[in-house]
């Protein structure tokens, strides 16, 4: 279990990104964190990943192996796809079934290719595979699919969910897409504008695997409506 209690994070220059932010994740849960841009969503991920320290408050992480998928693919241009994906293992002096992982994200034929030979969607697949290579207990995703076209995005979302069901890591998915958050997660946590804190959460009681048809269901639309309502209430209150 991961818990953040009453976190505050301010940056030099006086910007307070988070104030009184609390969030708890159960092991194996898929949670989306949604909020208006600039509300500190990405800061939450940085804090959990240990890339930044909270100004106030504490974060409890019981010895988690963390995987991180950044907004950009963030691949090393000088290394092949295989070397890129293997990086977390190589840095730790371990080895693992990289080729099997590449096959799972549909990159088996591209193991020896360099990032500049790949399309945007394929780069993201490689990035996702890399995050999973270290067999994380916790996967943090920072709007990884925002820059992709919708067809590629649906495809990648499906793959991510399949991988999650198989490995059952805890997933925290930061996004500003309501439809994405509802389609993917068990729980959508809504944040207020800056300084960000949690203003509500919506449970999505839909079994997995979720088929693409779920997007056409009335209950899907009504969950999306709930998330939207919650977001708008938070923004009106802030304004």
């Amino acid at each position: 279990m991961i818990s953040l209690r009453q976190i505050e994070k301010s940056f030099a220059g006086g910007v307070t990104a988070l104030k009184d932010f609390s969030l708890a994740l159960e092991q194996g849960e898929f949670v989306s964190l949604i909020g208006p841009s600039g509300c500190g969503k990405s800061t939450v991920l940085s804090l959990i990943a240990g890339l930044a320290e909270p100004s106030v408050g504490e974060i409890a992480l019981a010895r988690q192996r963390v995987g991180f998928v950044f907004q950009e693919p963030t691949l090393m241009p000088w290394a092949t796809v295989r070397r890129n994906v293997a990086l977390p293992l190589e840095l730790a002096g371990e080895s693992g079934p990289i080729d099997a992982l590449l096959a799972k994200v549909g990159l088996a034929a591209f193991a020896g290719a360099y990032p500049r030979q790949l399309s945007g969607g394929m780069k993201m697949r490689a990035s996702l595979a890399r995050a999973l290579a270290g067999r994380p207990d916790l996967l943090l995703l920072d709007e990884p699919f925002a820059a992709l076209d919708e067809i590629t995005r649906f495809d990648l979302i499906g793959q991510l969910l399949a991988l999650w069901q198989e490995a059952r890591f805890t997933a925290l998915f930061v996004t500003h897409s309501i439809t994405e958050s509802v389609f993917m997660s068990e729980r959508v946590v809504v944040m207020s504008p800056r300084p960000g804190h949690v203003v509500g959460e919506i449970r999505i009681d839909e079994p997995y695997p979720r088929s693409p048809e779920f997007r056409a269901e009335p209950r899907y639309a009504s969950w999306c409506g709930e998330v939207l309502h919650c977001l708008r209430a938070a923004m009106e209150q802030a304004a």
Partner: protein
Amino acid sequence: MKFLPAMIVGILFLAAWEGLVRLLQVPLFLLPPPSLIAASLAEDFPSLFDSLLFTLQITLGAFALASLGGIALAILFAHSRPIERAFMPYAVALQVTPVVAIAPLVILWVGLDNAWAALFILATLVAFFPVLSATLLGFRSVDGGLRNLFRLYGATPWQIFLRLELPSALPYMLAGMKVAGGLALIGAIVAEFVAGSGSATGLAWRIVEAGNRLNMPRMFAALALLSAAGIGLHWVLSAIERALLRHWHESQVEREPPSPRPSPARGEGVRG
């Protein structure tokens, strides 16, 4: 095939030169025809070649030292702002002072008997700065996202250096070294001009000597060797750059024909 256009231009140029010089009966001491220069080159080849070797030794030695020193210092500067602030102004000062101006001083210090050492020092000084500044820029240009990634996965400073910073800086480093190669040659020649007779027997001295004797074909022959050396150096460095970067760096992308890609038949298949 790639060199064909340049070769055609070269041949046309030489032919025009030869023809015009003969047609207009230009005096030999002003501009000898290429045929005479070639003959002079063949005739004096042993002594010119010795001079070429001497100049090349100085150039390559200075280039190697400048590259090593520049890279080492760039690494130091990149990892310590205080050290950079303390020493960078002096590196710049050294760079902006023309080599011709400090040449007499350096020659005096090492003594005319060791003119080669003076040439070596001066060539190194000129070649050093581009490597330093380009490499430093390279180390400063490491992608922030990748840096975070390495931190996230607990990379040691040594791993960050070897696997992230060095490869990131490599294209910059090579660009700096390419400039440095040319500058080392220029430095070696300029310094030799200043050093004058003495014990130096590089190509620069052959040029001065031939000029004094109004032996223009020999002067041009020495010049031709000199530019051949410069071109050769540049070509070797470009080849090294190409070998190291061709797989991944944008500067090496071949626009035509399209670079071979693995067949995309399977990768983008629809799933889930």
